[in-house]
């Protein structure tokens, strides 16, 4: 039997360099009596290394700290880095930001003191983040003492959350029904 494919899968999956001993033991567990001996394993590893050598492959299997590890070839690092950078990251929000955004979405237009009233914590710092991410914007001032700024969600908010307009926001009642149903079953 050809053990190379299995060894390739194991090296690919492992986060740390895998030693030939570890591979031999793993194969013993899988194949029992039919498992290959240490020498056979080493031969398969050597063949695998050979497969990955050469310009035709973008990956390599290298020997590190007495074990084997898969990695991209160094000459592609720059290109790979550029690719990773180009990935559009998903909307990343801290829990505090998400909470504040939720309050604004459902209570808009709303002032910072009103948000703090609901959340019970200072919201000013998070407001700045949400403004920067263009998820919220100002909406005039509230005619009460101090004339605090009102905030509302933006078009970008709708886009990010896949909504056509605000009326598409699920009502809390609708979600309560889901919760209730989940609890009774």
């Amino acid at each position, binding site marked *: 039997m050809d053990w190379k494919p299995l060894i390739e*899968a194991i090296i*690919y*999956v*492992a*986060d740390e360099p895998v030693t030939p001993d570890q591979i031999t033991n793993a194969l013993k567990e899988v194949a029992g009596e039919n498992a290959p001996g240490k020498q056979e394993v080493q031969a398969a590893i050597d063949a695998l290394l050979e497969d990955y050598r050469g310009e035709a492959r973008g990956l390599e299997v290298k020997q590190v700290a007495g074990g084997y590890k*898969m*990695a*991209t070839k160094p000459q592609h*690092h720059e290109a*790979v*880095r550029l690719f*990773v950078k180009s990935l559009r*990251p*998903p*909307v*990343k*929000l*801290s*829990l505090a*930001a*998400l*909470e504040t*955004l*939720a*309050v604004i*979405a*459902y209570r808009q237009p709303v*002032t*910072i*003191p009103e948000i703090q*009233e*609901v*959340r*019970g914590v*200072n919201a*000013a710092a998070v407001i700045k983040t949400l403004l920067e991410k263009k998820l919220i914007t100002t909406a005039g*001032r509230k005619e009460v*003492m*101090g*004339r*605090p*700024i009102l905030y509302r969600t933006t078009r970008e908010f709708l886009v990010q*959350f*896949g*909504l056509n307009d605000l009326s598409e*926001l*699920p009502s*809390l009642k609708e*979600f*309560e029904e889901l*919760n209730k149903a989940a609890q009774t079953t």
Partner: protein
Amino acid sequence: MDASLNVTLEAYQGPLDLLLDLIRKQEIDIYDIPVATITAQYLECIQHAQEQNIDVAGEFIYMAATLIYIKSKMLLPKDPDLPAELQEDPRVELVNQLLEHEKFRNAAQMLHEKQMLEAAAWSNPALQEFVDDSGEPGLAVGLYDLVKTFQEVLERARTRPRLDIEPEEVTTVQMIERVRDRLAECRGGLPLGELFAIYADNRRNLITLFLVILEMVRLQAIVLRQKEMFGEIFLRKHRGFNLLYSGPLEQLVRETSGAGESDEEASEPNAPAADS
């Protein structure tokens, strides 16, 4: 009931599931269901469950009623005036529902198999080695997270112990410290409105904040800027800003002004009056 059927209600997702199983296990032609027999078997299943004190969901009872209704309709004599092809079979609707349900039951089975196959493959992306940690930690969120979060916030607000305390009265010095520290963290200008929104939570604090801003302008610690008429007013650090860190603020305020009228710590008997 035929003992070989051996049906227990708990094994079923719903009445359609149970019915379908009764039909398929006995290899009955689904397009020609013997309603009387099936209804009897179905009722027996439910009765059996009830005898064992199993809660029978409303859906099962509703289906029982439907079956009895169909059975009774089939007993009615056919309309002799209508040709055979126009005679409506009372079973049609149920049969269609059963067939539809069965299709999706098979689809679910297919999805299950696909998922098993997918779960059997492992991925180990090496992305981490190429990501710089400049991004802030956070969660990728969707609409569901948003609603759920709002619900949680409201729940927390509802259960949060409410302490009804007198509104905090901030002294001049404390107010200067707050404005100073807030401005220090801030790279550009700080909107005046934001300061009022945060710190002017009662009339007294509103006045204190107002006086403090005037005081800081006088000390040349800050400047106020307004780009256009009626536009937002911004606070910016000015050349005297570092002075605010140079020593005890009491000294600074006392030496220069008497805005300390609301400042209990500073208003010792021999403090200068606010008549400068």
